[in-house]
């Protein structure tokens, strides 16, 4: 953990994420009911309304802050469920193999085909529908990755040892297999959260969410449905879009840092170049694998 905090990418990512998490938790309390109509529609940013007003005369700043809560909450809950279901199905398929694997793999591959929007179309629109659709269409992606990892872990000696000792299958999966893929599970969770936030915003933008609620997706839905674009009101869609991008970027950075942490091959060559004083690597040079040798080591 300490060495993770020395990674610049991780620090930047975690800081951005912390700001938005704080915003999601206390923000709505500060800005009050942001769906209220406060003044003339489509006012440009001013000292009073920092981000201007929407096509319906709502405060864009308030809506950007207030939208964070439901968007991020749904994103992380869906991300968690996607990985939980994926881990359950994936480890079972990978560990048991044989016909269990055949059946579960077929199931995984079938769910990969599911077009989410079509399913959303048949259900009443709202956050519950969106969450359900995202879980139904998302779990198979993580299940596939986790299955591959479980498949390779199953052949390791410590699993055979546990089997010989007579541990139950459930115990082996819970205490031998899953703990050994923690980093994969964490990165799958972050990836799923990125997916869930993006897809959720997309579905809401299409009008399949609760258009009366204030979320980042509905903010953009109204920005495109009111006359924001033709009237030149960039402030109605820029703050929300930048917020979504920053959260996604922060999550990607954290994932990247975790990756470098676990796989030294991917660590940036910059540190290596700095250490050797070379301008750039020749293409046939082996990839430098950096190992920290003490406090303050670069890389």
């Amino acid at each position, binding site marked *: 953990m300490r060495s993770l905090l020395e990674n610049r990418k991780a620090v930047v990512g975690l800081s951005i994420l912390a700001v938005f998490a704080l915003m999601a938790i206390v923000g709505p309390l500060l800005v009050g009911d942001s769906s209220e109509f406060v003044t003339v529609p489509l006012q440009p940013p001013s000292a009073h309304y920092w981000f201007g007003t929407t096509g319906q005369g709502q405060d864009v700043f308030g809506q950007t802050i207030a939208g964070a809560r439901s968007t991020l909450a749904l994103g992380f809950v869906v991300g968690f469920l996607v990985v939980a279901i994926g881990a359950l199905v994936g480890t079972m398929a990978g560990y048991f193999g044989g016909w269990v694997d055949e059946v579960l793999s077929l199931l995984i591959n079938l769910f990969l085909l*599911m077009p989410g929007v079509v399913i959303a179309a048949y259900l009443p629109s709202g956050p519950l529908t969106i969450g359900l659709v995202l879980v139904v269409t998302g779990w198979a992606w993580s299940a596939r990755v986790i299955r591959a990892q479980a498949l390779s872990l199953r052949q390791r000696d410590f699993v055979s040892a546990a089997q010989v000792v007579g541990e139950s299958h459930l115990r082996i999966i819970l205490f031998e297999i899953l703990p050994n893929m923690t980093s994969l599970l964490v990165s799958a969770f972050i990836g799923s959260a990125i997916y869930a936030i993006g897809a959720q915003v997309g579905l809401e933008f299409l009008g399949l969410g609760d258009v009366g609620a204030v979320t980042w997706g509905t903010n953009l839905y109204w920005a495109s449905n009111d006359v924001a674009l033709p009237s030149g009101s960039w402030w109605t869609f820029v703050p929300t879009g930048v917020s979504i*991008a920053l959260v996604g970027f922060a999550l990607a950075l954290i994932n990247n840092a975790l990756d470098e942490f676990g796989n030294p091959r991917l660590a940036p060559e910059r540190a290596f170049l700095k250490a050797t004083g070379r301008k750039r690597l020749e293409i046939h040079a082996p990839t430098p694998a950096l190992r920290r040798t003490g406090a303050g080591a670069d890389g």
Partner: protein
Amino acid sequence: MKFILRRAGFYLTAAWASITLAFFIPRMMPGDPAAMMFARFHGKLSPEAMQALRSAFGFTNAPLWKQYFQYLSHIARGDLGISIGYYPATVGSVIGQALLWTVFLSGLAVILSCTIGTLLGIASVWKRGGWLDNIAPPVLTLLGAFPYFWLAMATLFVFGFGLGWFPLRHAYDDRFSPSLTWPFIRSVFEHAVLPAATVVVVTVGGWMLSMRSTLINVLAEDYILFAHAKGLRPGRIMFQYAARNALLPNITGFGMALGFVLSGSLLTEMVFSYPGQGYLLIRAVKSLDYPLIQGLFLTTTLAVLGANLLVDMVYVWLDPRTRS
């Protein structure tokens, strides 16, 4: 051979499953979509005409299994029913037209993005630690973090409304009727520039990074060292030895991306009002045009399956190891 048989089994099962799902999903949903759909015709049609219409759309009072087999025989004949929103056009003809635009726009975008991204990946490894290698990954990651449709909105806002360089909506200028004339083709390309460019900008980073990381691993292989020992030129080693082998993951990704063109183009088409599959789907959803939704569900899933099949075949051709 066993591999091919297994894959064939999967494709048949999957095709059957998606056809079956397309049948059962609307019938399982709460609120009886059929009733909602026909409610709009109430008062306009006599009960007999309503009954005829219901059976024309496949919603009869016959037992479910009978309806199901009737539906299967319709599908086997390529008959997807009649669209409600575009009545009396058939679902097949409505989808066919939209499909053409989607395949053109998104196919173009996917091919461009994959090619540019792969080349950028090679270039960044060619000069490891050079400016491209340092600047491109973070910038492209940041760009990729923006919602797809948001960048589309922003580009439409700047280049469409602000500067007026590109048309705002639709696939071609209304003044022309579709024909193989120069002004029409020109207008089609003018309308495709913005939507295609946004897709390329958002997706190119993924291709580049995946090519880069695979290539780095391949370059560490012994046969690359051997090629150097033989004294081959770096360019030859890079393209003939390394890049060729590092291409495999991107080929898989390319096939997947092609398959998801139909569902993925939804948001872009929505922003640019581009008359493709995605735009059609949203209109069908808003007007509760269930036969059309069902047809789109089918074409979308079958497209993904088809793309997977294509990837499997290309893989066998590219990678001799799968042939044994």
